[in-house]
């Protein structure tokens, strides 16, 4: 069996008195597309920041390609490309120059980096903007630049922290396709996200993290088969505060006017939920019933929605 691309065991981290990670264990095989799914503050970014050297671990082990990320940091960092959630800003240099700098930090001279940089600028649709400063790019372009920067040294392992946070639908789909292409080229990808659809669509394996602990791990299919309930999604014509006491006996997630309920038996639950909402004078726009999804698994494991 080959060495795991990433292996994390018993990882703990506290900030002052806050336990950010409470013994995280994750193993990611080479070539795997792995999703770390959890709400904001669950410990996703802390985990990857420890892996990449931005945060110091308290206890536990973090290995990349079988080597310790602290002791053998030169080896482990040279195998990893990271696209951070926070977009960096540079006022001084054009973006092409920034990519050459990034390649240089990884020990790649400009002449060797050129083909990869040209290819990335082209693939990301940034070739025409190569002489622009970052501040002159749109939000979507900045996000694509962030990904180009992570790939400039052609790493085996790509870590993406919420890569599609705040981007429009078109760009999100474009980035998803690019990530699929990278995966089919044999790259190992660790993706953190709080978009359930993203994890479901892209990842071969998913770990659900909350409050610094991995609650469950498996393929999306395994998880939904084992833990998922059926889902009922109701779109309301508008949000009303009286909804909260009205639905107090149900567990559901809410995003604006969309409510999602995880239920065992949709046939018997659906009429009751509709009756309850209608009795509170809240207008229903549409109702959908679906088979089990990761959203239901998450709700089942944590008792809350991923964005709550």
């Amino acid at each position, binding site marked *: 069996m080959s060495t795991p691309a990433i292996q994390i065991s018993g990882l703990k981290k506290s900030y002052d008195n806050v336990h950010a990670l409470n013994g995280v264990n994750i193993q990611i095989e080479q070539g795997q597309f792995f999703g770390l799914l959890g709400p904001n503050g669950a410990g996703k970014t802390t985990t990857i920041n420890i892996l*990449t050297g931005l945060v110091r671990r308290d206890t536990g082990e973090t290995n990349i390609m079988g080597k310790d990320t602290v002791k053998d*940091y030169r080896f482990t960092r040279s195998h990893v490309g990271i696209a951070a959630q926070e977009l960096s800003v*540079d006022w*001084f*240099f054009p973006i092409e120059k920034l990519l050459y700098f990034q390649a*240089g*930090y*990884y*020990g790649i*001279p400009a002449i060797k980096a050129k083909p990869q940089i040209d290819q990335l600028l082209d693939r990301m649709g940034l070739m025409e903007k190569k002489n622009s400063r970052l501040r002159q790019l749109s939000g979507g372009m900045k996000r694509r630049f962030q990904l180009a920067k992570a790939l400039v040294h052609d790493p085996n392992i790509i870590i993406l922290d919420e890569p599609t946070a705040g981007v429009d639908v078109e760009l999100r789909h474009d980035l998803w396709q690019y990530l699929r292409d990278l995966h089919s080229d044999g790259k190992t990808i660790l993706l953190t996200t709080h978009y359930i659809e993203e994890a479901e669509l892209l990842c071969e394996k998913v770990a659900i993290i909350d409050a610094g602990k991995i609650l469950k791990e498996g393929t999306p299919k395994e998880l939904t088969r084992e833990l998922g309930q059926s889902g009922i999604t109701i779109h309301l014509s508008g949000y009303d505060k009286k909804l909260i006491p009205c639905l107090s006996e149900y567990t559901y997630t809410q995003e604006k006017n969309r409510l999602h309920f995880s239920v065992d038996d949709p046939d018997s639950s659906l009429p009751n939920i509709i009756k309850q909402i209608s009795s509170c004078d809240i207008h229903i726009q549409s109702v959908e019933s679906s088979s089990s999804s990761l959203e239901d698994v998450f709700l089942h494991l944590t008792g809350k929605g991923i964005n709550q």
Partner: protein
Amino acid sequence: MNWIGLWTLIKREVGRFLSVYKQTILPGVISSGLYIVVFGFTLEQRISEINGVPYTLFILPGLIMMTTLSNATSNTASSMLQMKLLQQLPDLLTAPLSGFEISFAYIVGGALRGFINGLMVIFVGVLLIDMPVQNIWGTLGFIFLVSWAFASMGLLLGQLADTWDHLATMQNFFLTPLSFLGGIFYSIKMLPDWAQTISYFNPIYYMINGIRHTILGVSDSDPMVSFFMALIMTIIFSLSAMLVMKSGKKIKL
């Protein structure tokens, strides 16, 4: 050792300050020229000579040193704090670069800016008042040594600072007063005894008198003491900056 990484970061740091030379090179030249014209030419009517040297000539080495050390300090301090605040630092911290390599590259960048600024003021002095330089290699070497020391100090400040206000406090309440009280515009022999004693505790006094010795051949302090003070500061600040970078204090959580 990641030599290409180190060289890349040095190029970035030098390129950064050269790309904004109107903010990083020219102001030192202009303000030194103004000091010479306003202070030198007007006060020279009233203060003919200090230690046997015409007043305008006397103040020039101090101006060179003040320009050098303030530029060296602010280059590393502002570059580091800017990288922290604008989320650029993770690019370095996640790359296969050691704390030593990152610190070294920053210090080289700051030391070069300080050195170039010092050199420019020497040119101004030579052009405006035909300043003689008695020991050219000693002068250049001393300027570089002091640039290195203060670039290291700036890096340390940049790493430890959280806001621009912290840096401004250091610059306005410590560095500038110590420079002015280090004997740029006067010889400490003109001060009362108690003020002379206090001056001996001001490290910048030794820097100013060291450069004054290499340029004019006159100095309030022993030139060897000035050299060793600069050397000790260089060692202490370089090691401190590198150790803080390695430890990740205020940089890594």
